Every structure is written in structure tokens, then in C-alpha cells.
């Protein structure tokens, strides 16, 4: 997973990585060269009292160290560039991927987890790349250099290295192996922290109203404790790594003296080479430490890479057609043909065998009890989900054959929960139409009966809207959401119970202003009050996902008992005549 991700996302920067490799190699060789030069100063300069030689070699040492520092810094420059670019590209790919998801995939992962994956998880992998570039790439050169030099001294003692290095590797490997599941749990628990806090922030009014702060604190504390515990387990495993690696290498040094002295006593080896062997072993120690550093961050990065790949390899359940069919008409009609929809694994379908046809200029109202599938029906038209079987046709074209952008450009959706984005009134209206003029905005606001309160807000069109629209009332939010849809002048309007938070007089005014604008469009409206939908061209009565009636008001009163029941219950309640 990790390697696959790295391979794919680092490919564009492989030239940078090569530069880093070369620079790090030369840099570490320069580092190895310095002691050699120093030895020469001692051997020839000092012992022979050759001051000129001391100055000359001193100059050479200066030059070497200068080269070393320049190459190091350059390697860090390219290394950080490559790794940060890796992070940027991965974040971008993830965000793009999630944007292509349908609501189903978003619900599957959950927004909090998707957020963690894009920022926190990418950060983990990015750190691994960075550490590799700046620290680890130099390690093999130092290690190999040290190894070669050590072998030159005495091949017979090299069995110690042959044992020590695999031993370090296998111990580190075991710890890493143990750490991976820990960090897998860790990332899930960070998701949970995100989830709880996000819930608290979005429901802050309810939390406060019910004085639930103490319980919320406990709930968060539980999640927090879980994270802390897992992090602690990971941290403790990690703290095993450095001391263990150091210990093994140190013991190897002791072994070198122990066995080396035997060989010396037997006359097979001289003292000088043994001391040199020790020096080079120290060099190898350094690179082992670097490898350990990488081993410490590897497990978490590996888990994060899994989580990133999981998102990247999930495809949207609402696929984009490869050869989209264009819709040519400007006045479209909408047809549903034997549409079924069910959630995977659900016992019964949400919608079953829905068929109807609405022409441009007509209105279809959908009524039915809570949970009867009304919202789902609108979501199918907007292609937030795809029908399990059957087809939604616009102008005779199956919408799965239409480019989503084209489909959506023809739809004006006003959802049940009118979500507004942080920004201003105008930035929210521009959601509907990016290049909307001020005049267009005021027109839409006027029809939506939102002009008067917007005018009174400080800054009017530029008035600040908080995230989710929490700083305006429910009714105002709904009217802004209606204006946002109106400004698009779409061919298909989807009103999902969009007038529920309005008082009746505002509702009536809004409908009166709206009517002339709908004469070229297909309008689907989910309603609750018979009084407001009785004049629709067609009324679809839904019950438990089934059509129990389709016709106009008068027809349905005769033919559909469910409808009649609704009419009567409302007549009783409203006390007016129907």
C-alpha cells in the first residue's frame, strides 16, 4: 500500500529524488574524506613539521566541508520540495476523489474520517518521505562506506557485522510489525475525536440547552483517553527502538575487541586494523540509528497510506458516462420509469416501481407520510444516488448517460435542510450562478421574499453568513436557499419541503411570485399541506416507497383513500374548507 502510493505519487518528482540521492551520496563521501585528510595532517604535516603542508591540507579540508554543506543544503532543498509536493498532490487527489463520490460513499467513510485522511494521514506519509530524503538517503552510503572500509581492515571479524545488522533489522522489524495495528487503531480513534468535536460544535445550542456539557466532556474524555492510550502504546514501542539498536551495535564493538584480541594474540591481526574496525563500526552505528528513525515513523505512515489508498480506490456509485449524450432541448420533460431504489443490504427497498412523467411547465407534487421515500425520489432525479433498477429520463435520455455537470446545470435543488456556506449572502447566491449580477441576485431574493431582510442585514448582499447559516433564522435560511436555486433559472426545480419554515403569508406571497417563473420548467415539489399542492398538475401519493395514487386533486379524492385521509385530517386541523 505504502510503496504503491509512494511510487505513484512520487513519480513526477523522481528527478528531484535522483538529485537528492546523488547529492547525499557525494555529501556523505565528503564526510568520510575529512578524517582521512586529518590523518594526513597528523602523519605528514605534524610529524614532519611541514607547516605549508598543514595549511594546504587544511585548505582542502575547508573546501571539502564547504562542498559537503552546499550539497547537504541542496539535497534538503530538493528533498523537502519533493516530499511537500507529494503531500500537496496526494491531498489534491484525495479531495478530487471525494468530490466525485456520491452521497453514499461520503456516508460510508463519514465526513470526519475523510477530513482526517486528507490532512492528518497525508501529513504522516509526507513526513516519512521528508525524513527519507533528508536523513535516510545518506545512511546507506555511510553504512556501505563504513562496511567496505571495515572489511578492508579484517574480513574475519566481519561475521560480527553479519550477525549484528540482521539482528538489529529483525528486532526493528518485529517492533514495526507490532506497531502497525496500534497505529491502525490510532487513526480510527483520531477520526472519532474529530467526529465527537464536530458534533459538539454543530449541536452546540442543543448541548448547552440540555446542560449536557458534563456528559459531553465524559464522552470526549473517553475518546481522548482511547487516543492517548493508543499513542502511548505506540510511543512505548517506539522507545524500545533506539536503545535496542544502540545496544546491539555497542555489544558488537565489545565483541570486536574480544575476538579481535584473540586474533591479535594468535598473530593473525594487528592492533591498528582493530581500532580502525571499531571506528568504522561506529560509522555503521550512525546509519543504523538513521534507519531506526525511519522505522519509528514507518508504521504510522504505512497505516495512513492504507487509509489514503482506500479512498483513492473507491469509485463513485454514480459513474460518469464515458460518452455522454447531450440534452438538446431547452424545455425538457422528466420521466421516471419503473424506478427502484434500495440501500445495499437493506431488507426492503426505499422506493419501488415508481413511474411518472412531467412535461415542461407542469408541476408534480409528492405527498406522503414521513419516511415514505419522498426525499430519496428527488435525490434520484438530482443523481445524488442512482436508481437500483429502472431509469430516470430527461428528454428521453437516461440521466446516467448525461454528463453530470450538464444534468446539474439544469437542476435547481432546494433541500429539506437548507445548508448555507460560510461567506456572504452574495457568495451563497453565486453558488447558484457564478457570474450572477447584483440585479439578478436582487430579483431572485425578491421572488424568494428574502429581499427585505437581506436589505436590513449589515452589508446587505455582502452581509456575513456563518457556516451552515447559523446566524440567520430557519425561515431566512430557507428563503436564501430558494433564491440560490432560482438564480440558476433551471429547467427542473426540486423543492424538498422547502417552505416549511415560512409563515403562511410569506409562503403565499412566495408561491405567487414564484409561479410565473416556473412556466418553462419541470417542477417537483415535496409538500406536507394539501392546501398548497392541490392545484398541482399531478399529485403522487407515496406510502412506504410505493405509489398509492397518482392524479390530480379531484381524482385522488375519489380514487385514493390514503390521499382522502390526509385531506380530511388537514381539514380538521386547519379548520378551513378544502
Amino acid at each position, binding site marked *: 500500500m505504502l510503496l504503491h502510493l509512494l511510487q505513484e505519487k512520487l513519480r513526477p518528482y523522481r528527478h528531484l529524488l535522483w538529485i537528492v540521492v546523488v547529492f547525499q551520496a557525494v555529501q556523505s563521501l565528503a564526510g568520510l574524506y575529512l578524517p582521512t585528510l586529518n590523518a594526513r595532517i597528523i602523519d605528514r604535516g605534524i610529524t614532519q613539521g611541514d607547516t605549508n603542508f598543514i595549511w594546504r591540507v587544511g585548505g582542502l579540508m575547508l573546501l571539502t566541508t564547504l562542498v559537503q554543506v552546499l550539497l547537504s543544503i541542496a539535497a534538503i532543498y530538493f528533498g523537502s520540495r519533493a516530499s511537500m509536493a507529494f503531500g500537496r498532490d496526494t491531498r*489534491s487527489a484525495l479531495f478530487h476523489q471525494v468530490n466525485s463520490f456520491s452521497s453514499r460513499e461520503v456516508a460510508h467513510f463519514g465526513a470526519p474520517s475523510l477530513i482526517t485522511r486528507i490532512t492528518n494521514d497525508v501529513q504522516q506519509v509526507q513526513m516519512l518521505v521528508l525524513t527519507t530524503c533528508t536523513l535516510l538517503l545518506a545512511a546507506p552510503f555511510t553504512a556501505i562506506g563504513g562496511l567496505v572500509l571495515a572489511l578492508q581492515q579484517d574480513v574475519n571479524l566481519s561475521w560480527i557485522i553479519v550477525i549484528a545488522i540482521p539482528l538489529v533489522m529483525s528486532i526493528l522489524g518485529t517492533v514495526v510489525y507490532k506497531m502497525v495495528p496500534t497505529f491502525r487503531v490510532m487513526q480510527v480513534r483520531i477520526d472519532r475525536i474529530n467526529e465527537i468535536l464536530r458534533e459538539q460544535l454543530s449541536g452546540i445550542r442543543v448541548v448547552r440547552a440540555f446542560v449536557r456539557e458534563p456528559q459531553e466532556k465524559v464522552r470526549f474524555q473517553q475518546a481522548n483517553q482511547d487516543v492517548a492510550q493508543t499513542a502511548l502504546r505506540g510511543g512505548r514501542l517506539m522507545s524500545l527502538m533506539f536503545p535496542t539498536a544502540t545496544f546491539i551495535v555497542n555489544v558488537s564493538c565489545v565483541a570486536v575487541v574480544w575476538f579481535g584480541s584473540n586474533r591479535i594474540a594468535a598473530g593473525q591481526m594487528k592492533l591498528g586494523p582493530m581500532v580502525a574496525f571499531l571506528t568504522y563500526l561506529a560509522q555503521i552505528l550512525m546509519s543504523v540509528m538513521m534507519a531506526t528513525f525511519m522505522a519509528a515513523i514507518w508504521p504510522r505512515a504505512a497505516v495512513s497510506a492504507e487509509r489514503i489508498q482506500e479512498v483513492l480506490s473507491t469509485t463513485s456509485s454514480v459513474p460518469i458516462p464515458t460518452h455522454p449524450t447531450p440534452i438538446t432541448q431547452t424545455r425538457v420533460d422528466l420521466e421516471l420509469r419503473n424506478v427502484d431504489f434500495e440501500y445495499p443490504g437493506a431488507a426492503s427497498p426505499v422506493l419501488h416501481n415508481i413511474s411518472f412523467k412531467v412535461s415542461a411547465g407542469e408541476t408534480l407534487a409528492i405527498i406522503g407520510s414521513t419516511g415514505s421515500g419522498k426525499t430519496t425520489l428527488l435525490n434520484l432525479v438530482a443523481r445524488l444516488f442512482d436508481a437500483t433498477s429502472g431509469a430516470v429520463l430527461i428528454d428521453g435520455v437516461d440521466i446516467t448517460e448525461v454528463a453530470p455537470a450538464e444534468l446539474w446545470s439544469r437542476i435547481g435543488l432546494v433541500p429539506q435542510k437548507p445548508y448555507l456556506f460560510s461567506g456572504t449572502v452574495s457568495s451563497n447566491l453565486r453558488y447558484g450562478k457564478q457570474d450572477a449580477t447584483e440585479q439578478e441576485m436582487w430579483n431572485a431574493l425578491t421572488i424568494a421574499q428574502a429581499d427585505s431582510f437581506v436589505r436590513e442585514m449589515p452589508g446587505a448582499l455582502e452581509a456575513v453568513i456563518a457556516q451552515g447559516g447559523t446566524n440567520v433564522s430557519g425561515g431566512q435560511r430557507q428563503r436564501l436557499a430558494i433564491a440560490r436555486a432560482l438564480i440558476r433559472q433551471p429547467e427542473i426545480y426540486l423543492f424538498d419541503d422547502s417552505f416549511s419554515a415560512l409563515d403562511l403569508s410569506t409562503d403565499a406571497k412566495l408561491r405567487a411570485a414564484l409561479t410565473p417563473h416556473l412556466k418553462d420548467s419541470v417542477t417537483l415539489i415535496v409538500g406536507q399541506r394539501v392546501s398548497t399542492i392541490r392545484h398541482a398538475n399531478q399529485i403522487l401519493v407515496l406510502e412506504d416507497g410505493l405509489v398509492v395514487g397518482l392524479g390530480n386533486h379531484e381524482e385522488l379524492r375519489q380514487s385514493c383513500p390514503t390521499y382522502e385521509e390526509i385531506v380530511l385530517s388537514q381539514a380538521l386541523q386547519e379548520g378551513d374548507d378544502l
Partner: protein
Amino acid sequence: MNEPKRMNKEDQTTSPVGNVSELRAGRMNTVGVPAEKSKNFLQSAKRLTRLISDESILVILIFLMAVASVALVVSGPRILGHATDIVFQGLLNRDGTDGIDFARLHRTLAFAIGVYTASYVLAYGQAFLLAGVVQRTMFKLRQDIESKIHRLPLSYIDRHSRGDLLSRVTNDVDNISQSLQQSLSQLVTSMLTIFGVLLMMFIVSPILALVALTVIPLTLLTMGQIAQRSRAKFISQWRYTGQLNGLIEEAFTGHAIVKVFGRQQEVEERFTTINNELFETANSAQFMSGSIQPATMFIGNLNYVAIAVIGGLRVASGSMSLGDVQAFIQYSRQFTHPMTQAASMMNVLQSGVASAERVFELLDAEEQITESGVADSAVTQGQIEFDNVSFSYDPQRPLITNLSFIAEPGTTVAIVGPTGAGKTTLVNLVMRFYELNEGRIVLDGRNIAEMPRSELRSKIGMVLQDTWLFNGTIRENIAYGNPDATDEQIRAAAKATFVDRFVHSLPDGYDTILSGDDGAVSAGEKQLLTIARAFLADPAILILDEATSSVDTRTEVLIQKAMGALRQKRTSFVIAHRLSTIQDADIILVMENGAIVETGSHVELLAARGAYDRLYQSQFTAPVIDLV
């Protein structure tokens, strides 16, 4: 009861560590990062240190273990050197009697292994304990942030990006934790090693030691120069991470809208802008701070060269022995290594402190007015009086001015009026979500500003139009207002509010998990759940804000009945848009532009032929216009 004039800003006595001006309010929409201030950097670092040193005994223990471990590690090579000497002596004696004294050699080597083992145990123990200290500190930090959220005024939460707040808890705290875990023990170890080696150098040759010593100010100067620049970049990096998190959070929350309105491209463009900024700053931060290590190494090597040359010249001139120079060179090598290590750890820490600064910034944000007064266990009658209340969110636009009325216990007060008249604001004031500008609200003779918020709110049940439910089972959600409720109580509340009926049709019944936006429970059913929740909380006062709107009529009848059950024997405030639902209210307050323009019963108000009558007529005689 004296009631001082309360202005939201002036009475603030909370904010424990001050520096409120640092709160960059209204940053929500700015894409550009504000000019970086890093003057708080040292403060933040100090504060972080204070936070860690809460566990002072452990910290001291860890420090002592580090000292011991360093001492052992430094002495390791000396013991090995001693072993080498034994071999060397043995060689010198070869022609003589014994050759190498193996017994002594093996004793020395065994000692070396002992020292290494001890240092191993100490190093591991120290890192093990440190992990505990760091994680406990991070636990505390996250907990502090969570409690802080409950003390922040609503206006702060409304004004700030949710994703950015989340980023501070997850990404920033995570970054602090990783920085500390990685760098702290190594930093301590390196510092101690530097000190130890320096000591040895002074013993060998004070003059060369002084040469070596010049490295320290030079290194500090270089480090300071680079760090100052990279610090600002680190702060930007974590700010942009927060901004990006904010954008992502909002885009995913409104995922369906973004899609259907075809705004994906625009959102992705904004994402790309911030993502690129993040790349640029992260890149600079990493490059600059990454350069500290080679730069320090360079200075170390310069020193190495200087010692080699000066030492060489001094030996050549006969003022120093070769052995001393050699020892010195060795020490200067030993000196460079911890120096560069310390430098690179400082760099890791910088990123952590930059994150800490963001966390502290949140922790220092201005809080709501602190609690005053003590709880009173007397039974609540439920009389509420608005006494000359004035309030506005924005000083420029007065919203409620000089409002006075009394709601007697057990009565239903209906509040009607056009949207924006201030109906919801009234509720916000009763709940004390916001503080009054003038006047007072009195509950059973007690000014609510002098009651603990928790006491006030526990007496009030609220059903809002926003049907906020949390990720959990239906049972847990109903019990939200009364966590100690028994199963029977939950069921009874569910029955009384018609929740029981639809819960039974769900496969998992009361254990059905409500999560995200899945279709298991419809909007109307969610509304019923919020009513059940308020019912179970059994408050003396009830606030129903536009609560009956988004449901079908049959459910609405149920909700009306449920509400009726709920309203019994309670003082209720009902904000309704349909006058038909509130005709039986005891008093109807008709609001317009933040003032009450009429008060009375339905019959009285109709007879008065004023604003209420006009509203009533408009609702019941307005031609029903259809969408044709």
C-alpha cells in the same frame, strides 16, 4: 437585586492568560494568512514547558535517567579504549612472559557490557516514561480544548470555521505530541553530551577549548537567524493546514449541494489555492529548518579544521604534544555530533511550538461571562419576566428594545410575528446563549444572569427546528436530556411523543444507530425524537421554536398531540408560524422589529383588529396560490 449594565465586552473577567487581542476574530473567510506574529513564540514554548513540567517528579526522574545514560554512553568508548590498551600492553610484552592478559581483558569487556546494558535500561526507561508524560500532557491539552469549547460564547463558534477548530485538536495536538516525543529526549541527551565533552576539552587544553567554544555562539547565531525565518513559516504551515481543514469540512458537509449546484470546480480551485500556499510554506519551513543541521555541521567542521590546523602548527612549534592534539580532535568530533543533533531537534520542536501557539490561541479566546450566583434547589414555579430588556447582536442595529412582559407559571405564551422580528432571539436570551445589553430576565424572582447557566438551562426544555441528534442509538438520543433515565422512562417518553410507534418498525428498534445523513429516520421522525428528548428531560419551562414545520400532516397531528402532552403544567413559549396551532395559547405576543406590538388572547387580539388580526387575515384568507 442590582443589575449592572452588561456589555458583552466590558464585563469580561475570564480569559485566564489574557492576550485577547491576539484573537483574530472574523478570520473565517480570509484566504490569505494574516501577517505572522512570532513574538508569542517564546511564550508558547515556555507555556508548553510549563504544561509538561506538571509532572515534575517524573520529569526530574527522566532527566536524571538521561544524565546517567549519557554518562554511561560517554564512558563506554573509554572502557573499550582501556581494553585496547590491555591488548596493546600484551603486544608489548609479547616477547616477554604472558602476552595479553586475557583475564583482565575479559573482565574489562564484561564491565563494558555491563555499562552498555545499564545505559540501555536507562535509555529505554527514560523514553518509556517520557512517552507517558507526553501522552498525558496531550490528553490534558485536548481535554482543555474541549472544555474551552463549552465556555466560548456562541458568537465565537458561529464566527469560526469548524474545520479549523477541529484541526487544532487533531492535527496541531498530534504535531506537538510527535515533536515532543521525537525531540525531547534527544535534545536533553545532546545538550548533556555537549556539556560533558566541553568539560573534557577544558581539562585537556584550555586554549583549544576556547577555540572550540567559539562554535557555540556561532552556532546559536546561525540557528537563531534561520529559526527566526522558519518559525514564521511553520506558523503559516499550520494555519494553512487549519484553513484547508476548514474548507474540506465545509465542502464535505455540504457535499450534495456542492455537487448539484455544479460548484465542484470552484471549490477545488479554492482548495488548490490553499493547498498550494500550504505547499509553499511547508516547503520553505522544512527547507529552512532542515538547513539548520548542515549549517551546524559546517560550523562544527570549520572548527574541526581550525583545530587540526592550529593544533598542527602548535605541535610543529613544539608548544603542544601530538597526543593532546589527537585527543582534542577526537573530542571536537564528538562535540560536533551532539551539536548538530541538538540543532535538528530544535528544528523539530519549532514546528511543535508553532502548533502549540495555535492551540494556546484557542485556549486564550475570550470566554462567556463567568458564572455568578449559586444554585437554588427550590422547586421551579416557572414564572418568567422580561423586565425592560434590550439586546442586539450588532451594536449598530438594535434588535430588541425595552421589552417587558410576564409569563405566569403553567401558561402557554405564543410568540408570533414575521421572520426576523426577533422571536428566536427571545429564546436565545431566555436560554442565556447571549447576554442582555440592558434590563433583566427574571425566573421565579431570580435574575437569570445571577444563576449558574447550568441551573437555568436544566429548568428549560427546548425543541428547535434544527433537529440535531448525535451519532448514537435512538435510546441514547432520547436520554440526552436525562442520562440517568431508566429504560421504562425512555419508553414512556417515546410512547407519549409517538416515537415508540416508528421505532418498533425499525429492525434494531431503540438500538438503531443514527448516523450521518442516512435515510433510516426521516426528518419528521427526527423532530419527534427531539420532542421525546425534551419530554424526558422534564423541564419546568418549555421552548418550542418553529418545531412543527417540516413534517407531513399526519405526523404533525401526532406532534401537536405530543406537544400538548409536553406543555401540560409547564410554562411554554411557542414560536409558531401557523396561527391555527396557537389559538389556545394563554397569551399571544405579537412581535414586529424587536418590539412587542400587541399582547392578548386570540379572541382579544382579533377583536382589537390590529397587527395580529392582519396577520391572521393574511394567513387564512390569502388566496392559495399553486405552482402551476
